[in-house]
């Protein structure tokens, strides 16, 4: 096996994992604290990408665009929470699924109205568009490194906030025991809004990071959100650590599956069957993993300690 290829693939897996983590982190907290299934979390991923793309073109600066887009996405998240999500927390899961399904339709159509159906190409500055040469055979696209760094930075920031601050203490407490937080006399409404909006902003960052690669498009969040749900279920609902590990596992399995499964299958079957079967099976891999984990360890790999 080509080691240069393997290293690149591992890096790609890491990148996908990081992006998934950014989505899953908010999702898992919102689910853990508010007991709210938010299928529309992926919409913030899309909204973030579109806002950022618009700003980047407008200001002609990628970094400035991203920095401005983050609070704006957070604001969108906040408004969504106050207008709609808030009144759903006490409803059952079925209502969550349906209402957030409706929110997805609304976000997608409004995006269509504002930005058109075609999607958006987000240009990268030259300094991010190059290559970093590690060795003769290994060259890494610098933007990928940037994504991974930003992702790890956000992850580290979240780790700091969640584990070292009073706010983080409340969030952790909320994820494991809701009544306890209320007993502490915290204004639970504000905490909920904050978590929701922050989750939206972090999902938005993921969208902003990926859009220079794939472009921004309507519905871009709807499929990845399902993968993010797979992540938080594997990791254990409500657990940031679980989301992180789960995201990396899913990112790696998906990327390595796509790259090496056909070679693996060729050991058992003829080339042509392997090449046609590989894409489908590699797409199924993460769902198979989730089904196995749910069947064996329904609470996920790292469930929050007390529930």
């Amino acid at each position, binding site marked *: 096996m080509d080691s240069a290829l393997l290293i690149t693939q591992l890096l790609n897996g890491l990148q996908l994992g990081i992006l998934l983590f950014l989505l899953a982190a908010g999702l898992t907290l919102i689910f853990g604290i508010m007991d709210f299934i938010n299928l529309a979390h992926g919409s913030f991923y899309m909204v973030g990408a579109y806002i950022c793309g618009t700003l980047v073109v407008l200001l002609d600066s990628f970094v400035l665009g991203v920095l401005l887009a983050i609070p704006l996405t957070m604001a969108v998240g906040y408004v969504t929470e106050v207008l709609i999500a808030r009144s759903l927390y006490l409803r059952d899961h079925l209502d969550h699924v349906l209402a957030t399904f409706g929110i997805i339709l609304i976000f997608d159509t409004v995006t269509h109205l504002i930005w058109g*159906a*075609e999607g958006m190409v987000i*240009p*990268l500055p030259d300094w991010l568009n190059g290559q970093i040469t590690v060795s003769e055979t290994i060259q890494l696209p610098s933007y990928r490194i940037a994504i991974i760094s930003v992702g790890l930075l956000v992850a580290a920031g979240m780790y700091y906030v969640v584990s070292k601050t009073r706010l983080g203490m409340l969030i952790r407490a909320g994820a494991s025991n809701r009544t306890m937080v209320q007993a502490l006399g915290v204004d639970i409404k504000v905490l909920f809004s904050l978590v929701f909006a922050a989750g939206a902003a972090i999902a938005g960052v993921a969208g902003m990071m990926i859009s*220079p690669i794939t472009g921004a498009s309507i519905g871009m969040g709807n499929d990845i959100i399902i993968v993010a749900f797979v992540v938080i279920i594997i990791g254990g609902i409500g657990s940031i650590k679980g989301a992180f590990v789960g995201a990396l596992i899913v990112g790696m399995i998906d990327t390595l599956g796509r790259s090496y499964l056909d070679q693996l299958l060729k050991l058992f079957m003829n080339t042509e069957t392997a090449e046609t079967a590989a*894409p489908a099976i590699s*797409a199924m891999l993460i769902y198979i993993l989730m089904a196995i984990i749910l069947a064996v360890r329904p609470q996920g790999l790292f469930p929050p300690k007390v529930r």
Partner: protein
Amino acid sequence: MKKALKAAVYGLFLTATPWLGTASAADSAPVKIGFVTTLTTPAAVIGNDMKNGFDLALEHIGGEMGGRKVDVFVEDDGFKPETGKQAADKLVTQEKVDFVTGFIWSHVLLASVKSVLDSDTFLISANAGPTQLAGKGCNKDFFSISWANDQIPMAMGEALNQEGIKSVYIMAPNYASGKDMMAAVEMTYKGEIKGRDMTKWGADTQLDFSAELSKAKASGADALWAFYPGKAGGAFVSQFMQAGLADTMKLYTVYTLDGISLPKMQEAGLTAALGSRGTQNWSPDMDNAANQKFVSDFLAKHGTYPSFYAQQAYDAVMLIKSAVDAVGGDLSDKDAVRAALVKADFASTRGKFKFGNNHFPIQDFYLREVVADSEGRWTTKIVSKIFTDHQDPHAVDCKM
């Protein structure tokens, strides 16, 4: 009894809906054309360009065919076979159109074809050319103005032979056309295929090609051969550059770099596109009167070069007009209309044009290169002719 009831019911509605009353005046009734394309999802860029070509054709013919007005019913396929099929159903059962055209996607066309043909309506594909319909599945009422899917990749394989490319890595989306293309490569390309990848397509299109590009890079192939229509093309070329492949591998594409994707790539500074080559049956720089009128008017109206989607939609309208004109606007004799369609007596933007026995065109294929025009806009230019009067290999299976 039933008739009386029908009359009574219609009588009730006549006052409210006056248009029902005029429907019986057959001669002055408009020719109805249904147009199915993608107007939502990111693939709408293609659908809109195609519709621009379609609209331009209608404008050029003054909205008239055989002395009758043309009524157009545009339907969105949502980039999904099922939605497209429902749209086609609606066109033939509710609107009762005379012709159905459009269709970017092979899978959408394959889904819709039964509904349309079962209702004895003419179906003229303006882009999709699934091989299934060129061979055994050919039908007297089905026409393709474009190609059989594998013709362009066959031309590509031949072009690569001519260019002296020893080995390639192939990437294509995993759907009917992508599969047709993969199969076509082996028919003509004589070099080594170092590897191939088929990526997710449809509403859930895979747009991050990092894993595949890494494999391509590691394969050490001379060239990368890709097929990514519409938006995916932009994403593909940008990642091709980011992965640093532009310096080590030559890029060849089919159905990827066109009037839709090139302006966006230029905007995003994806210079890897410049100089890359691909095969096609048409190019905006083709030198014939019909094409020059089409391209210059399109440029004037929309500010971009037309894509082949627009060009083929334009040709489709011209083909329909030629048939309706030939029968003097009387569409009641289907055989006469069909015979007129087969004749294909219209000025194609491709210059010469004729149908083979399977109602797919017999035509020339060219190698084109991405260049900047006199005003600096990126477009394609013909480099050489690869095939002359090429007919798809499936035509022999068509018993018609």
